[in-house]
């Protein structure tokens, strides 16, 4: 292999700055999108289990729609197509007046997409709770809202933490798609450094290491949360 290694470029300006800024954007997009995904996904997930049929239908439609269209297509729809459908003023706002349109659109697209996946986990969590518990709640005179608030949600959220971890990890990886709408996140910066220095291996190795580091930190964090929120006697805690 005929290649001239220069690991030093990673620590030179402006390339080090590019890497740091790319890393920053990746983390920022992912965390902001996660807030949307977690909140909206929880609501949609709960709505999929409520007694009212129209509400359930709406929630199901949301999940099926956002889950069955590739994220890249969704991102292009938000970024390229939406401003052209809206009235001129609103379109212009999305394209120009918004501070950092690429960032905002990436967050929205990634957030709404991931929400559909979070909703599925939450629903599965609620449905895994034995009906006896629900009946017991009803028998003791809890309203539907109280039943969710005091019985179903506290249990189901703890049950779904492991699968949430994997969704949370996925959001960091999926944030790389933002490069297609011009956001200079970590992967895009690795390419840009390759462009300027021709040291592709170093740049991509650095990006790979940073993504792995993010995954390690996230996994560690979620393990801590998981062990703290475990319910004695439930699956995942019973075996040991």
């Amino acid at each position: 292999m005929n290649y001239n290694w220069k690991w030093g470029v990673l620590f030179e300006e402006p390339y080090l700055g590019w890497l740091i800024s790319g890393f920053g954007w990746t983390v920022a997009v992912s965390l902001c999108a996660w807030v949307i995904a977690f909140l909206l996904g929880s609501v949609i997930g709960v709505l999929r289990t409520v007694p009212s049929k129209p509400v359930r239908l709406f929630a199901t439609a949301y999940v099926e729609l956002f889950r069955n269209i590739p994220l890249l297509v969704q991102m292009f729809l938000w970024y390229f197509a939406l401003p052209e459908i809206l009235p001129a003023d609103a379109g212009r706002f999305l394209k120009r007046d918004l501070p950092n349109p690429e960032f905002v659109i990436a967050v929205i697209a990634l957030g709404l997409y991931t929400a559909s996946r979070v909703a599925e986990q939450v629903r599965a969590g609620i449905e895994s709770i034995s009906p006896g518990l629900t009946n017991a709640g009803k028998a003791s005179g809890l309203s539907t809202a109280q039943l969710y608030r005091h019985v179903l949600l506290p249990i189901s959220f703890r049950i779904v933490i492991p699968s949430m971890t994997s969704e949370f990890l996925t959001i960091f990886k999926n944030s790389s798609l933002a490069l297609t709408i011009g956001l200079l996140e970590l992967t895009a910066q690795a390419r840009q450094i390759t462009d300027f220095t021709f040291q592709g291996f170093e740049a991509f190795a650095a990006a790979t290491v940073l993504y792995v580091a993010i995954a390690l930190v996230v996994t560690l964090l979620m393990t801590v949360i998981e062990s703290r929120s475990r319910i004695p006697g439930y699956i995942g805690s019973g075996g040991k």
Partner: protein
Amino acid sequence: MQKIASLFGAALLTLAVMPAQAQELTGTLKKIADSGEIVIGHRESSVPFSYLDEKQQPVGYSIDICLKVVEAVKAAVGKDIKVRFVPVNSQTRIPLLSNGTVQMECGSTTNNLTRQQQVSFLPTTFITGTKLLVSKAGGIKSIDDLKGKTVALSQGTTNERVVKAYIEAKKLDTKILPVKDHAEGMLSLETDRVDAYSTDHILLFGLIGKSKTPEKFAVVGDFLSFDPYAMMVPRNDADFQLVGTKAISALFRSGEIETIYAKWFDPMGVPAEPDLKVAFRTQALPE
């Protein structure tokens, strides 16, 4: 006896011909001969150099010149070869050429010394420079008018660096939208996402020509850079490069280049600049 003699003669003949070819072919030429195909990197929206026609096939001035080079390559390897086109853009062209995915790039690439550290170039086939494409309604006349505005730049182009450097030096506070290729740059201007798109002036005219509303756009400002275009070939492959240089020099010598030039640039109303004519003459090296 006669039979043996003729066999012997044939063997001698083979011996005389075979090594000549087998030894000469090295590097890219050998790969082309072995695989029976040459892989050409093309662009999707560098009008009129290298872009997709209605049937989504690559065509253009650079493609026509490259096909002449392919003829010369056929003669050099002594057999017919197929052409396989692979799409590249300003960001992928150099990595893909240096890693061997494409064997020649026929697009709109500026020959500069930084790039010569990674790749080699055939003779210059066009001369242009960086300008701005704006919508007439916006009132931008030169790069200095970009103060506080937004400009789209193609990632990995020489224009990107020139404009970025200018903006920084003059502290223009211009927002930059990185785009993937010229079509995306034009798109962001057409949809009013940016106030200007900057790349080589000839490509800007090409983009206007392909636009649905050409009257709305104008190319403005002074040349911000000097960009001589050339086909890219792998570095450190003198044999392959020589085949290409010979083929293109022959086009310059015979004047055939003028026919190819007229085919692509006359419809745009762009006559060859004096600089380019001089370049054609000085590069018309004798055999």
